[in-house]
């Protein structure tokens, strides 16, 4: 009964209600879209940061990720296959890493060499997809090498040129051998472009005198955001002495970026809703003031103040729910459209690298449930807070004075 009265009251001044409603719908739906685009950027960044080099999950000897100790190797050659057989793991790539001196014709630079199996690495990271010259490493890599563009420029080498790599091998000897550049990659991440070289795993194992051994196994999983959970489950099944790291452990700055995104999302929502809330407050105050006489009569014929307050609150609640439904629906539709089609901005801006990830020059949305339920939930809260003051005022009216007022 009270609900029906409240609903009817809402539509007595159709224009005012529609205006308020549209403000709420527009603000919430645009907010959902904006947060979706934000999430899309974050997703691009995360993908570039993790899929470019680290992978989503990495298994290595405990402590290896802290000091990259040459001797902290995994000898179990069946482990990559075992990991790949898990349903949540898309692919696994064993890797061996060495730091040393890389020389072109005259110039030498320190470099990081990553020994990989090209076929498996391709399924885990996108490093091989960023070629700007030459060809990717063949599956039997031999002494072929993919070299970062900055490093190639500094050493003055191009595809087909010879390189010499020198490092301390695991048996204490001076490991040194020739490499031949097959291709040059450019990722946009200056750290990798200026210092990373991909070589065949068998070549590096022989140079370092670490036969059959690797330092880590990088993995791609089906849901990057669930990597931490998968890591926990995996950790329980791994042989002792091995640890599993998710991208958040390997790229703490990326985790920070995700956390700061959560905070900035909250701030944007609060600012926008403070404005929307004032609008709603204004509408309802006007509505209550206009109906002072009506409330006076209602109370004079026996409606209790509590009921009057409940009625006004029900009006705001109904308006809020309506706005929430419409705003959520429109917001979801726009997010979906943006996700499906997106807007390419590569003509206007260049990629930006931040926190180890690259933000691509495109507007593209990603669906994240929190981007919908949080604006909607908060909209309702704001609505109720904005409705409470007018409702209290209505409930406090003195019937006699209210009826006399004109």
């Amino acid at each position, binding site marked *: 009964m009270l609900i029906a009265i409240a609903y009817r009251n809402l539509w007595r001044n159709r224009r005012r209600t529609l205006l308020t409603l549209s403000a709420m719908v527009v603000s919430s739906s645009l907010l959902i879209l904006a947060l979706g685009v934000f999430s899309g950027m974050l997703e691009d960044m995360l993908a570039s940061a993790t899929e470019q080099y680290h992978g989503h999950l990495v298994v290595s000897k405990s402590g290896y990720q802290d000091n990259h100790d040459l001797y902290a190797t995994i000898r179990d050659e069946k482990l990559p296959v075992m990991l790949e057989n898990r349903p949540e793991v898309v692919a696994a790539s064993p890797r061996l890493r060495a730091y040393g001196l890389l020389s072109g014709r*005259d*110039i030498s*630079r320190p470099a990081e060499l990553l020994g990989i199996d090209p076929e498996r690495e391709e399924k885990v990271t996108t490093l091989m997809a960023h070629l700007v010259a030459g060809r990717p490493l063949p599956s039997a890599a031999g002494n072929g090498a993919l070299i970062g563009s900055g490093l190639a420029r500094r050493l003055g080498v191009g595809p087909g040129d010879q390189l010499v790599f020198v490092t301390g091998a695991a048996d204490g000897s001076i490991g040194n051998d020739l490499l031949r550049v097959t291709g040059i990659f450019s990722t946009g991440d200056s750290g990798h472009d200026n210092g990373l070289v991909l070589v065949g795993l068998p070549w590096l194992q022989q140079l370092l005198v670490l036969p059959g051994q690797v330092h880590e196994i990088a993995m791609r999983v089906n849901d990057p955001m669930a990597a931490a959970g998968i890591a926990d489950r995996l950790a329980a099944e791994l042989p002792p002495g091995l640890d599993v790291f998710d991208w958040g452990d390997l790229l703490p700055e990326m985790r920070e970026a995700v956390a700061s995104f959560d905070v900035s999302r909250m701030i944007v929502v609060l600012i926008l809703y403070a404005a929307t809330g004032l609008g709603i407050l204004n509408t309802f105050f006007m509505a209550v003031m206009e109906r002072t006489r009506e409330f006076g009569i209602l109370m004079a014929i026996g409606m209790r103040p509590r009921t009057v307050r409940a009625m006004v609150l029900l009006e705001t609640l109904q308006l809020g729910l309506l706005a929430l439904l419409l705003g959520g629906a429109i917001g979801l539709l726009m997010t979906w459209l943006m996700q499906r089609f997106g807007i390419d901005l590569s003509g206007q801006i260049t990629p930006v690298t931040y926190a180890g990830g690259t933000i691509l020059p495109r507007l593209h949305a990603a669906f994240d449930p929190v981007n919908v339920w949080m604006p909607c939930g908060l909209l309702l809260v704001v609505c109720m807070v904005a409705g409470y003051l007018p409702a209290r005022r209505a409930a406090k009216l003195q019937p006699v004075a209210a009826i006399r007022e004109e």
Partner: protein
Amino acid sequence: MRYFVILLLLFCAPAYGFGLDLRQLVRGVEDQYMGASSTARMTMRVSTVHWQRSTEMDAWSLGRNHFLVRIREPARERGVATLKVGREVWNYLPKVDRTIKIPPSMMGGAWMGSHITNNDLVKAAHVDEDYDFTLLSEDEISWTVEGTPKPDAAVIWGKIIYHIEKQRRVPQQISYFDEDMIEVRRISFDRVKKIDGRFIPLRMSVHPLEKPGEKTILEYRELDFNMDLTPAFFSLRNLKRH
């Protein structure tokens, strides 16, 4: 008046070092294996947690700026050589027949897999120029000399402490401290022998203190001074000859 000041300075200068020129003393220690020129055959034994190995090397030096060392044994690494001229270091790798100049960023790296760095080869020759020295203590047997970097010198160590035996003027131990004044490396000397009128400790043990149990022992088996060497001997071409 001006002459008086100069005279005063002249008279005071020798007194400053307690009658002992510390800079000259340290210079003598740092250059002990070089002389005007030298040839040597040495054995380097490196022990780490993971491996131990022994290398036989031939070495030549001229003054403090020219130095060439070449591996004889093990056979696998025969011909691997290092040339130092001034502040620059080259390595020659016979397996790939390439000469590699060590870039500044790699000067802190290990030399031939030992606990000696490329910087040690280069900067040791400049310690007496880059540091100021004070006598910390003195007893009947030895002096303890502290070297602190000159304000504008590009140095690696925050402090170096020399223990030098008085009578024979040979180092007993040298301690190296980092910027935080933590002792990170200790080199001790023994097997002192008189060669060409000078006392030389033929064995040098390098202990990296952050890696307990690891050490590099460099032992001179033959050492001759004042050989007939010219700067032309220390050439990139000669580096490759094996």
